[in-house]
């Protein structure tokens, strides 16, 4: 069997035992991408030459005893992270030809740990979308059913990991953009606490919500990779100066005695019955392992989607103002004057959903509407964060569904923004409150994966990873592989 079937942790052991070299592994995965990505469109840029050079260097480092935690391990970066001298598109026509002159801190940290980057994955344009259909580079297809969406915005990363193009990929999550695609592709999606991973070099969507994380196949892999990319960064004012614990070392402890919170509203109408059944089953498994459950109340959680759709567009409308056709990015030809240059460069460079969100943001911040929308949303955000604070006084982890249902068909929701937005109904709360959260595969519905959603207290990534790892020791949902990619 090919090495591609192995997890990050298994491959690390294989490299350590010299069962194979990083160059051999990298060659195999590059060949796999080249053979299969036509079906998925998970990659925007494949960096074969750079990957092979990095792999060769990793092999030298390893033989010299110098390798870092990720030495020689192949990964894929979501194309939202700036990569020096390599095209960084953010899924947009605006940045179709943008060559970043610098590396994001996440990219730098993983490079220092020895990771080998195979390429950059497809994504919703500027991370705005839940289906990967807003990408300028075309939609990504779900490896479990090519007619379905792999979720978004990190759909390229989730599809690539599910299809075994790489054992791990970076991703970002503003309202669910790591966890929802992970759930829909049967992978682990981990979003750390806001401030745990540097945002420097990650192209901003909504600065107070964005957080970088990982998509892997096992919780153990997520722990390994997160350890390599997290940590304080002096270039990011919102990066927290807290030591990063050894996440891998903490995985072994059982879940016995852990208190799991269940939010009643999460199992109301709106949740597909089959999906709900898989999630309840997963919770029952955790209970059988010694965890207890407590019902918790998040009285304002039903306001999380509208709150998000004020806060995120407001921040994005401002963050995306820098794309004006002057210093980088798409520039309209033959502009008549400055205004024409701005309006056409932006009109042509941005896709529909991005324009819609920019306009929503400009509207909610504009004179006369600020108090009713933006300020009000900030107040409701406080209420939601308070609800979580109170809940975590009584429980260690909140558990529930990651998405209302399994993967939907490409094209199904693209015409109705609200239906699309509601796909993130269970995940957005964690972003608003800045909490760590993850999705863990917990079974199939009609042949398509669904996920168990875990939310933890601030900086308590360790407990989430431990619960997920212990669950994966008892179950094999994460080992399921889509038929065409076995």
């Amino acid at each position: 069997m090919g090495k591609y079937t192995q997890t990050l942790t298994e491959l690390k052991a294989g490299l350590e035992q010299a069962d194979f070299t990083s160059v051999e592994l990298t060659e195999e995965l590059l060949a796999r991408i080249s053979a299969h990505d036509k079906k998925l469109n998970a990659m925007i840029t494949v960096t074969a030459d750079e990957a092979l050079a990095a792999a060769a260097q990793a092999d030298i480092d390893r033989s010299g005893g110098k390798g870092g935690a990720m030495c020689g391990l192949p990964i894929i970066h979501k194309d939202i992270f700036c990569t020096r001298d390599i095209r960084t598109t953010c899924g947009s026509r605006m940045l179709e030809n943008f060559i970043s002159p610098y590396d994001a801190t996440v990219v730098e940290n993983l490079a220092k740990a020895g990771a080998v980057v195979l390429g950059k994955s497809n994504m919703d344009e500027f991370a705005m979308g839940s289906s990967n259909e807003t990408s300028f580079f075309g939609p990504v297809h779900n490896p479990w059913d090519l007619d379905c969406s792999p979720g978004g915005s990190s759909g390229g990363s989730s599809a690539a990991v599910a299809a075994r193009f790489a054992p791990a990929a970076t991703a970002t999550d503003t309202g669910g953009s790591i966890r929802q695609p992970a759930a829909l592709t049967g992978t682990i999606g981990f979003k750390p606490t806001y401030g745990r991973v540097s945002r420097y070099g990650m192209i901003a969507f909504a600065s107070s919500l964005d957080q970088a994380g990982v998509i892997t196949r096992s919780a153990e892999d997520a722990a390994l990779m997160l350890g390599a990319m997290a940590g304080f960064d002096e270039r990011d004012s919102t990066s927290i100066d807290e030591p990063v614990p050894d996440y891998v070392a903490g995985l072994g402890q059982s879940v016995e005695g852990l208190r799991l919170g269940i939010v009643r509203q999460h199992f109301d109408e709106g949740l597909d019955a089959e999906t709900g059944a898989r999630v309840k089953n997963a919770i029952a498994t955790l209970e059988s392992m010694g965890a207890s459950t407590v019902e918790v109340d998040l009285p304002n959680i039903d306001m999380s989607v509208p709150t998000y759709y004020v806060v995120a567009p407001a921040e994005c409308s401002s963050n995306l103002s820098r794309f004006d056709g002057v210093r980088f990015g798409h520039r309209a030809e033959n502009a008549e004057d400055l205004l024409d240059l701005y309006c056409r460069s932006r009109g042509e460079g941005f896709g529909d959903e991005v324009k819609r969100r920019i306009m929503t943001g400009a509207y909610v911040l504009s004179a006369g509407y600020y108090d009713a929308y933006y300020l009000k949303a900030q107040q409701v955000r406080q209420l939601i964060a308070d609800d979580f604070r109170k809940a975590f006084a009584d429980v260690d982890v909140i558990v529930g569904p990651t998405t209302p249902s399994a993967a939907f068909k490409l094209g199904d929701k693209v015409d109705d923004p609200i239906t699309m937005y509601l796909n993130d109904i269970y995940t957005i709360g964690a972003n608003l409150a800045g909490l760590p959260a993850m999705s863990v595969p917990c079974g199939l519905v009609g042949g398509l994966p669904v996920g168990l959603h875990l939310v933890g207290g601030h900086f308590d990534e360790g407990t989430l990873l431990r619960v997920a790892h212990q669950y994966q020791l008892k179950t094999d949902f994460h080992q399921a592989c889509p038929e065409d990619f076995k």
Partner: protein
Amino acid sequence: MSSAWEVVIGLEVHTQLATSSKIFSGAATAYGAEANTQACLVDLGYPGVLPVLNKEVVRMAAMFGLAVNATVAQRSVFARKNYFYPDLPKGYQISQYELPIVEHGEMNITDEDGNEKRIGITRAHLEEDAGKSVHEGFDGSSGIDLNRAGTPLLEIVSEPDMRSAKEAVAYLRKIHTIVRYLGISDGNMQEGSFRCDANVSVRPRGQQELGTRAELKNLNSFRFIEKAINFEVERQIDLIEDGGEVLQETRLYDSDKDETRSMRSKEEANDYRYFPDPDLLPVEISDEFINAVRETLPELPDAKLERFVRDFNLKPEDASILTSSRALADYYEAVLAAAAAKPQLAANWVIGDLSGALNRDGLDISSSKISAAGLAGLLGRIEDNTISGKIAKQVFEAMWDGAGSADDVIEAKGLQQITDSSAIEAVVDKVIDANPGQVADYKAGKDKLIGFFVGQVMKETQGQANPGQVNKILKDKLG
């Protein structure tokens, strides 16, 4: 100006803070570099970059706040001011809006009648400067240089407390003096490190309600500020008296034509969509920090002036000139420290000959060709009667031209004062003998002729005779 009208002026001063690096990035702030060579990725607003606040900027703002007796906020917040302009790379300016770092300050100026007047300082907030657009030399295009983008600015906003262009200038000069005393800005107006906008309105004297104001921009020298305000006041009064109405608008001062004109390009209703910058957290300032800053506050101009008058017995006008810049005051005190010269004599020299020479050569006190110790040496020779005040001017010029110390010059040119009474008597006798007519007139009661005789003696001695002795000997001999 018609006295039926009262003029109301408020000023917004933008002063660049004299830091080494920018407010949110580690790029250099030096003036005059080649285009875009001091604009790093953060200053260019590159995708993915983030701002981190410069500590020095916070210290300087706090220092200013303490100097104008203001409240330094324990918590202030940076917001984004959103608008598109080529010199604004991110499409928003990071500024402070609802919660500025400094609020409720005040400052005294001397008004036109010589009275102290209090001017309120509404607030001072931190923000980033924009880049520059260059309109010439790019063939139908404008060139954008972002070197200045991200330079720290402190925007100081006054209450509408000034009632004339002269008061506005007095206020501005005072702010200018204070920021330079504090060492937080070089105050260089030519290089744009100290800029001013003026809100000007008029109202019928006695009316409480403020008139509609125009905002004057591009006021880049003290002289232009006065002229621009005066022009604008006349314009508004004429307009109203002719039955017109003042529009609330931004007007640009054109120094070539000495007029203000409407900036139509800026008239499009601005909706800046301010909101807290999510890339930056609230700035919190502790009491310890404030106290530490307070300890580093230098003596401020008002206190220094008071001390100069009190301790050195100077005329207030002189003390005011000497304390107008910290460097000048320091120079003056260094002269006093180095010589036993009388404070008023030293003041006269610093304000008179030294300032004249500096002006003539376009030099700053810091690059004076005569050091404080050098000037002290010269004053010492006046005090000990080696030379007269008149000869001293000659020595000063020689020193200025690099001829060495006062003693070197006196020695080389043989300028020592004649204090030998018998030598002076001989000359006096000669002058009396040569002017019998004047002697007769003097004796007949024309006392004023004493000046004539002194002049003749000084002429004979090429100014080197001690004037006091000459006077005394003449009076003795003329009876």
